[in-house]
């Protein structure tokens, strides 16, 4: 039955996502999530007798490894250096701001679950709050032909902030696993250091290996195999698979020299499939009663994250020497939340101790994704417009054009 469910989720999610983006201009993600919700146990799932639980966990772990690999490979050291000081400081400020405000807010409210220390849930939500999804922002920039220093800053920041988010989330998970006990600190250190070392060695190896494989198909086997192996090792030896996969990508890119297509293109083609799975799975776990009961938590998460990243990125950008026109608007442009955060929340589901927290986190993140993917696009547009980087005269005809052109094609 799991095969059937995955097939349905992939196809129906894709159909709903592309139709939604085609006719209503919302990101595809929204359609993916809604389809997942439709097949959740509360709605069709129970009725159809579908059950996702057995397959979800390993699939999510591997899929998250694939995304982490791509995040790690986004930039070389040289590119990071040339990205510009203000983009780096603004990204760090944005991530720190969102993390601190969400953490403080949820600690202050005392949101928690029985199995975990009081700082557990706030810490996880704060880590999840640091992630921004690039797709909606890039689409807005394309649609309105935005151009200028704010546009450049936004593009650079959305490319980079996931990497920080992965590091933070990995550390948070390691801390939670140790339960805050000081004597468990060596385990925390192991979880992080082993991930960095093993991922780093793997990156060097996979770069060497990929030089010997000329065929796209064989490189795909090697790269996906390496990611799966790493995720499997992480499970067996208790280190952070997420961090290890990101390190794999980073070191592979580093040793690979300038040209990265060979190492990343085969895997990039799988990314959309991973996201369809993440979002539809997240939708499956969506529980209307939890969402309604915790509606104010969702709103609070959204507000704290937004406020935190607007203030944080303003401080960071100003410290990095960016002009006010950038510093004032850069936080607004980065609201959309997405795949990586959802995948991380799903990963929590795997460990029994975290199960209750996972349900809460998945519901908050899923609802917040729906919210930020729609509002976030408006906010990004507003920020870019305020900075005078939009070409309003020519923008905004996207949906209509697209519809007509598709009709023209084919025989």
């Amino acid at each position, binding site marked *: 039955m799991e095969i059937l469910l995955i097939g349905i989720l992939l196809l129906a999610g894709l159909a709903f996502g592309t139709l939604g983006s085609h006719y209503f201009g919302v990101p595809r993600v929204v359609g993916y999530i809604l389809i997942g919700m439709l097949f959740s146990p509360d709605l069709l799932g129970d009725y159809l007798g579908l059950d996702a639980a057995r397959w979800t966990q390993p699939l999510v772990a591997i899929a998250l490894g694939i995304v982490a690999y*791509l*995040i790690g*490979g*986004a*930039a*070389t050291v*040289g*590119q990071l250096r*040339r*990205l510009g000081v203000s*983009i780096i400081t603004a990204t760090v400020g944005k991530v720190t701001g969102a993390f601190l405000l969400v953490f403080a807010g949820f600690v202050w409210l005392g949101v928690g679950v029985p199995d975990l220390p009081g700082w557990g849930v706030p810490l996880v939500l704060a880590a999840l709050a640091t992630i921004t999804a*690039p*797709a909606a922002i*890039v*689409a807005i920039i*394309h*649609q309105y*032909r935005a*151009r200028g220093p704010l546009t*450049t800053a936004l*593009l*650079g920041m*959305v*490319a*980079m902030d*996931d990497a920080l988010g992965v590091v933070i989330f990995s550390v948070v998970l390691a801390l939670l696993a140790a339960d805050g006990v000081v004597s468990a600190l060596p385990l925390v250190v192991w979880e992080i250091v082993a991930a960095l070392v093993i991922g780093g060695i793997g990156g060097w190896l996979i770069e060497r290996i990929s*030089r010997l494989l*000329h*065929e*796209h198909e064989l490189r795909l086997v090697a790269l996906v195999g390496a990611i799966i192996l790493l995720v499997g090792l992480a499970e067996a030896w208790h280190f952070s698979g997420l961090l290890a996969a990101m390190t794999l990508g980073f070191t592979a890119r580093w040793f690979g*020299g*300038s*040209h*990265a*297509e*060979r190492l*990343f293109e085969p895997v*990039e083609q799988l*990314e959309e499939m991973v996201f369809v799975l993440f979002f539809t799975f997240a939708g499956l776990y969506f529980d209307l009663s939890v969402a309604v009961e915790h509606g104010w938590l969702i709103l609070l998460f959204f507000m704290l994250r937004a406020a935190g990243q607007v203030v944080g990125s303003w401080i960071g950008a100003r410290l990095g020497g960016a002009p006010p026109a950038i510093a004032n608007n850069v936080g607004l442009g980065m609201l959309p939340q997405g795949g990586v955060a959802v995948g991380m929340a799903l990963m929590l589901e795997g460990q029994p101790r975290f199960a209750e927290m996972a349900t809460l986190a998945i519901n908050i993140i899923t609802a917040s994704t729906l919210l930020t993917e729609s509002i976030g696009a408006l906010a990004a547009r507003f920020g870019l417009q305020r900075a005078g980087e939009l070409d309003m005269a020519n923008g905004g005809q996207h949906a209509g054009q697209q519809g007509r052109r598709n009709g023209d094609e084919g025989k």
Partner: protein
Amino acid sequence: MKASDWLAAHPAEAVTVSPEASLPEAAALFLEHPEVRDIYVVDAEGRVCGHLGFRRLAGLLLAHLRPTHSRRQLVERVVGGSVREHMDDHVLVMRPDERISEVFHHHMERRVEAIPVVDGERRLLGVIRIADLLRKAINRY
């Protein structure tokens, strides 16, 4: 057929660029040679150290026309950089004594249109172009 024999029968010169050139400079070379889709990056000693394809370059310089970017493409769009940073430093080359049929398919895999032939010092002796192979193939029909 050996690469050296082919080059003698179908001489074709490679277009080259320095690793320090800017991307627009490389683009200008493509526009000067409209039939070329591959240029080779050669260092100060004249050794081949990289390859830059037309589509790769067009993708970089026309990134603003694309509505979706991978993270890698986002960074590339923001950062820019010289030819050295965007070339493929893993160039497949042929030696003059290698047979074309043994090497050709790797180039098709890599989506290039010409195979550089180099001597023992990695200096360019010429290129074998798919167009010339095609010309020979259709004469069989």
